[in-house]
């Protein structure tokens, strides 16, 4: 039996172009100059780390890969130190390739349309205000830990029909899967097991007492032959919705507040012109895109003139694509009224984020409610901002001062 208990240590990176590592602390803290350096070197760079991994650095190369399901598989969606056997129904549809992808995705699309999200909006406003009530008297807050973190977790718990009071449990599983799991297989396996057990218990409960939520929805869904979904498929999709629904939007809201805390001109403009918030949200999504996905090269090909070989992973960095100056004028600047913004924060091609309409609504509501009640705020100079590692980028500690404490 192989020893999976010891997470791998990674030597610090000294040659970014030939030996990049998205878990290196330098990348975690400030990836933007690194992406610039990589992009200047090549549209596709390679590292021997993670058992061999490419990274497209331009918008065009990212788009090419995202749209090429023949040479690139989605069966592995996180670049990690290990490549265990593919688990069946790991997290459909995001881990599915054509032709099984489309029917699995179509099942999940109707509950996440913009109209469906509109109905959730009042609940979201209430959640944001309840959270603000909890700290507004203090004049200071860790906005990541006490605000941005709990907005998406409560939203997806509400949609899945699982207790919002279990939020800390969900957040811990996601940390184990998306961060610790990159280097420590045992943590990932443990979290997947615990999530599956958790959802199995909820499925069991609904057999006698059906409910009006996403768990019952998936239990009652039929595949394209008209048969109920296999239990492994239902569990895989439930795990996906929980994992994908939480720290992605948590990160996006946190990065937005981080930007506004440091940029009074943008903050003042959004307060004076709240109708600009949806446009600003798109720009904040472009500039601080939280999610980097992965693909696996399953057939040799060429991307932007660069050959890629099978058996390597691809770090499909939508965030780096969104900083490509060939695609976005002033790509390194946050322009909150940017009109043309074809950003790729929610992915491109068939794996477009199923929850993008939910995430956009949550971000808009979270910023609107925060700015209404806390118009003036700054980063707390006595505190430290820390950023997550790896798959999803966002602040994990965001100390902020406001009101009298400023």
């Amino acid at each position, binding site marked *: 039996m192989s020893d999976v208990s010891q997470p791998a240590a990674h030597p610090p990176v000294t040659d970014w172009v030939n030996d990049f590592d998205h878990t290196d602390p330098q990348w975690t803290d400030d990836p933007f100059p690194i992406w610039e350096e990589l992009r200047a070197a090549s549209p596709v760079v390679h590292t021997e780390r993670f058992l061999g991994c490419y990274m497209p650095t331009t918008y065009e190369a990212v788009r090419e890969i995202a749209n090429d399901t023949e040479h690139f598989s989605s069966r592995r969606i996180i670049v990690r130190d290990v490549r265990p056997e593919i688990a069946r129904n790991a997290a459909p549809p995001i881990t599915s390739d054509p032709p099984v992808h489309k029917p699995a995705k179509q099942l999940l*699309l*109707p509950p996440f349309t*913009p109209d469906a999200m509109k109905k959730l909006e009042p609940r979201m406003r209430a959640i944001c205000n309840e959270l603000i009530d909890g700290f507004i008297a203090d004049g200071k807050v860790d906005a990541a830990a006490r605000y941005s973190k709990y907005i998406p977790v409560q939203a997806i718990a509400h949609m899945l029909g699982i207790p919002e009071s279990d939020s800390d449990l969900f957040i811990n599983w996601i940390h184990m899967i998306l961060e610790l799991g990159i280097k420590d297989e045992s943590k990932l396996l443990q979290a997947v097991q615990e999530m599956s057990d958790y959802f199995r218990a909820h499925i069991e409960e609904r057999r006698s007492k059906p409910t009006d939520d996403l768990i019952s929805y998936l239990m009652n869904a039929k595949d394209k032959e008209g048969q109920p979904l296999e239990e492994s498929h239902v569990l895989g999709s439930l795990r996906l919705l929980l994992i994908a629904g939480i720290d992605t939007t948590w990160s996006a809201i946190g990065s937005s507040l981080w930007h506004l805390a440091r940029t009074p001109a943008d903050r003042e403009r959004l307060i004076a012109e709240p109708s600009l918030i949806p446009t600003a949200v*798109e720009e904040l999504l472009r500039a601080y895109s939280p999610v980097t996905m992965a693909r696996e090269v399953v057939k040799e090909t060429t991307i932007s003139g660069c050959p890629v070989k099978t058996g390597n992973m691809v770090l499909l960095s939508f965030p780096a694509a969104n900083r490509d100056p060939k695609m976005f004028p002033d790509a390194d600047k946050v322009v909150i009224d940017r009109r043309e913004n074809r950003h790729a924060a929610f992915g491109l091609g068939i794996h*477009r984020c199923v929850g993008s309409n939910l995430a956009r609504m949550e971000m808009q509501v979270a910023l609107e409610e925060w700015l209404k009640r806390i118009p003036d705020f700054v980063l707390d100079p006595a505190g430290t901002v820390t950023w997550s590692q790896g798959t999803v980028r966002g602040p994990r500690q965001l100390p902020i001062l406001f009101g009298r404490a400023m």
Partner: protein
Amino acid sequence: MAERLKVHVDPDKCQGHARCKALAPELFELDEYGNAHAAGDGTVPPGLEDKAWLAKSNCPEIAIDVIEE
């Protein structure tokens, strides 16, 4: 001056980002999966030309055409 504009969504390219519906709700509709198509026959009523171009330039999948007739 102003030619008549028509919008068209390529159904094979659209992935349901729904940017067009957000930016130009008069010109686009979404189906039950959230995928977009042009409202009616796609004709852009006078005064909404800017919204048509805005939707086109914000579609992440480059699925929207604005046709000048």
